[in-house]
């Protein structure tokens, strides 16, 4: 089974905004529910 997430988030590196989405995973990494995929 697979779950795909498609979502909108602040683009990293926007002028005048310190928010931007960054990934916190590696490709092929094992992950548990509740762990971090990424941060805004």
């Amino acid at each position, binding site marked *: 089974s697979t779950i795909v997430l*498609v979502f909108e988030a602040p683009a990293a590196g926007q002028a005048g905004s310190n928010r931007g989405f960054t990934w916190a995973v590696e490709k092929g990494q094992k992950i548990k529910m509740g762990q971090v995929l990424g941060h805004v």
Partner: protein
Amino acid sequence: LRHALNDTKIRWYPIPVGLGIGFLGFVQFYKTQAREKERWEASQEDGDEAHPKKRPKVRPDGPWQVQFMSTLPLKAMSRLWGRFNELTIPYYLRVPGFKLYSFIFGVNLDEVSEPDLHVYPNLAAFFYRTLKPGVRPLDPDPDALLSPSDGRVLQFGKIEGNDIEQVKGMTYTVDALLGKNTPTPSISGKESEPSDGTADKGRARAELYGDEELIKADEEFARVNGISYTVPGLLSGGPEESHYDSARIQDQSAVPSNPGAVSEVRADLALGEKPWYSLLSPDNKTSLYYAVVYLAPGDYHRFHSPANWVVERRRHFAGELYSVSPYLQRTLPGLFTLNERIVLLGRWRWGFFSYIPVGATNVGSIKINFDKELRTNSLLTDTAADHAAKEAAARGEPYSGFAEATYSGASAVLGGHALRRGEEMGGFQLG
């Protein structure tokens, strides 16, 4: 002959289980083909053009393995596999059986909420097991997007344009994955006052998306599914950080707001005027991202909400049921646009949010806890799809391949069903 019949000793031999399964599969396949043929002949008589036979069967391209798979009755096999896994296992075989399964697929039995494995009557029940409280702590950072389930991160990245180009071996268009168009709102009529009278619409929406003064006025403004929500709690962010300004909210008159039923399935599909990307923010301060998490057979197969968000509508693509193993993901381009899947569309504090559980042959059913009407991987699904195709053809419109339901009835104020970070949303069931 009489002598042979009377005097020959009768000896019984066990039939191999695989042979039995093969035979049942063949019988099922033969019945399905006969029924299709019968229906097709009937449609020939009355000239019915919209017969499924006329609907182009999606032929995936790819190596011979994929072509071979596309000729197999995968749905019938999935249902058969589901039936097989719902057979009750003899009581004393359950513990060794589940331990063997756990050993082969790497299930951590220490995390399973039910210590006595005898409780699980069959493999389907064990597959849909729950975990002990606390074994999956949520990351405390409110700005973190959480993993929706156990599994392996197969792909992730940013979406440029319509194609998800950064994905090796998996090229598909977002439109194909999410379904491009949406039917005209199924709930007709003007915006009306919420029947429970909790708040007037404009004020409530402003509260939802960040109008500080109004929030101070009424911290607890919505009771959804019996749980009271505060705006900051729901969207896990200070109102001043919220992405929407109330002016923008005001012009969303197209958003269905009539409470109506919790969800309403509309099998007839017409080209509407509100594609999925109408939910995207008009300013260009945001981008689209995607992530793909693969659940192996031994993983915990219930899935959860990765953030606070409001799901507004659901699109069910009946699709085929190919395996979603990493191998097939690499070899079958556009796999996810072929498979049976549920596309949940909604919003979170940063804009558009969608959550797409994708089914597979060995794990056919997708369950969404708050959508009692959803049936996947069942004959009903096929029948609904045929029905939808006929109706769309009768109206001279193309069949866009999915049945849609909206959750606007869940909360008139939020315009959808609110999900909390880490809340269980449903799961994958065998067969």
